[in-house]
């Protein structure tokens, strides 16, 4: 360890950070009992349903499961471009 690392407490990605990130992910999945495969299907179907009604920006969709306290939350951030033309 260099003197700089010692003074600043080191700056590499620490295994504690890796553990925390992995734990957050696995707990969100455990709590709602949704595998990454199921989650991906859920996203696809959600996008398909919404696209039936409005034009959306598929490049900038963010659908994710997060937790706050002991609650899990499905958050979907879907930019809408405009109304779909209905015939």
């Amino acid at each position, binding site marked *: 360890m260099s003197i700089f690392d010692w003074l600043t407490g080191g700056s590499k990605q620490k295994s504690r*950070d890796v553990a*925390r990130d992995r*734990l957050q992910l696995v707990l969100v999945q455990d*709590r709602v009992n949704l595998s990454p495969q199921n989650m991906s299907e859920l996203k696809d179907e959600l996008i398909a349903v919404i696209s039936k009604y409005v034009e959306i920006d598929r490049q900038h969709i963010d659908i994710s499961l997060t937790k706050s306290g*002991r609650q899990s939350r499905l958050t979907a951030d879907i930019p809408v471009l405009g109304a779909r033309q209905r015939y």
Partner: protein
Amino acid sequence: MSATVITVTSGKGGVGKTTATANISAALAAMGKKVVAIDADIGLRNLDVVMGLENRIVYNLVDVVEGTCRLRQAMIRDKRLADLHLIPAAQSRDKAALTPGDMIEVINQMRSDFDFILIDSPAGIEQGFKNAVAPADRVLIITTPEVSAVRDADRIIGLIEAEGKSISHLVVNRLRPDMVRRGDMLNTDDVIDVLAIELIGVVPDDEAIVISTNQGRPAVLENGSLAGQAFKNIAGRIDGQLIPFLDLNETDSFMGRLSRLFKR
């Protein structure tokens, strides 16, 4: 007198449920409380050896439930503390020998004689766990700062919440402050943040626990160990005292590193 029934559980095995049960029970008894510790790990009994009472067993919890003996006959009095008792698990039976209803019934029979009844739960989420949690007024969740243990603790908390069970408190066991400072172990805040339940104690990893377990003397009854002090503090908090958390030097500040450098 009506006892508070506290179940000690974790999901994952080997995180320190039995050690915590023995030490918290002994600490409460040393504070003058009437305590009984019950080993609910049927078929894999261990609370007796951790408490150093393995040579005194005649009857066990299953004998009481089946009516082979009276409750008082299965209750072993501790060698050092007159107010501490143990009801051992049956060793040659399995978890199916008991039901949650049996546990509630047996516990209700002793509520009026004690201040605290501690139940040492088996690992897992099956029958044995359900038996141990059924009579609980409060649940102590033991975890270590590791991904697998915290994950299992989360599952257990979910199950206890689903049962509509009351107050769960968290004990973070076997924390290594040196590893936390290096950024190589989850810290207490990380664990609380993930599990989102109230903390009741942090117990550092301590050789004194291995030594006291070798000797069958709970660390809280010996003087001087940090882990023993942490368990005493947990017992005090269970009794409603306001006790500040031990300073385990989890944070890595420049001044902290400097002072440790000169302490060596």
